């Protein structure tokens, strides 16, 4: 009996010294997280990765578009001596619409609320330079045709510089707001 008491006491000391507890570790369910909140969503992860890839490409083509626009504006003075302005302008247009496509097709996860002053300005300015980028090549073709055939330029053709210039300025402004708050 005496030996039994000693054994019991020694065992209890040992258990308390190693902090023995029958309680399992705390887990997320104990904190009130539901299965819905903790579940893995591989499809969503793929959508987020696709979004990141497309927006990264959108940034690269966006920078390229800006550079081509500046070059096209710079080459506009020599438009009657060579075709460089037209080629660079066409490249800028192609790059512009590729940039637009990448932004429009980047997945947006459900429930996402657009937040950030720069994003709002960036999206608002597309409604200015978008239509202008449609009018610019049309005006350019009309102006080129008038020059070639020594015809008077129509209203749109005669305003081509202003249209293209405004498109470039609003586009570059839209790009710069993203550079400052990325």
């Amino acid at each position, binding site marked *: 009996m005496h030996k039994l*008491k*000693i054994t019991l*006491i020694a065992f*209890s*000391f040992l258990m*308390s010294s190693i*902090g023995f*507890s029958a*309680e399992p*570790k*705390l*887990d*997320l369910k*104990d*904190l*009130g*997280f539901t299965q819905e*909140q*903790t*579940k*893995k*969503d*591989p499809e*969503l*992860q793929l*959508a*987020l*990765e696709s*979004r*990141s890839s497309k*927006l990264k490409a959108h*940034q690269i083509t966006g920078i390229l578009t800006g550079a081509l626009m500046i070059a096209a504006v710079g080459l506009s003075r020599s438009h009657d001596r060579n075709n460089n302005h037209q080629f660079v302008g066409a490249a800028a247009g192609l790059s512009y619409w590729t940039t637009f496509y990448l932004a429009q097709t980047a997945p947006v*996860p459900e429930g*996402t*609320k*657009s*937040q*950030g002053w*720069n*994003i709002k300005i960036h999206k608002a300015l597309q409604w200015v330079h978008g239509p202008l980028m449609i009018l610019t090549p049309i005006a350019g073709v009309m102006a080129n045709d008038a020059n070639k055939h020594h015809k008077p330029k129509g209203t749109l053709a005669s305003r081509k510089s202003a249209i293209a210039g405004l498109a470039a300025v609003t586009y570059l402004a839209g790009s710069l707001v993203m*550079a400052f*708050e*990325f």
Partner: protein
Amino acid sequence: MISLLLLWTSAWAEQPLSFDLKSSELTYTVSHLLKTVHGKSTEAKGKGRCSNLQSCEFLIAVPVTSFVSGNSNRDLHMRETVKGALHPIVSVRVTGALQEKLPLEVELSGHKKMIAPQSLKIQKTTHEMQVSGTFVLKLSDFEIERPSLLAASIENEVPISFKTTWTVH
């Protein structure tokens, strides 16, 4: 023999304590060449228990989606970078004696890492406990690929600051 038994039971009978997270503010800071960004969450949940002051366990967890930096594109990119759709919860577990040198077990992006806090302050009153401090995560420890812009990546070290208030039962 009986006196030894009494001594042991009085130590063991120290009242167990439980803690519920009442409020929290967790902030991460990401540094890039061109900018420093702060993302904040106030939606952490947490519980703690101490069988005695030498044996405590705390778990605090926060949804990745609850961190906001003021830019939705950036928040979505952060969520993708830390694989937030596969591991939607970031957690910090602490076990041991309730003192100011507790190492933290951080689980992020499906990886666990023990991190020593840079600073940790514990203030106790009768019914509340405030715990605040900072620690530094290294993205490479959690196998997180550092995002980049204009060929420059963000810093590997991400300081985290936290302020928590717990009710004590």
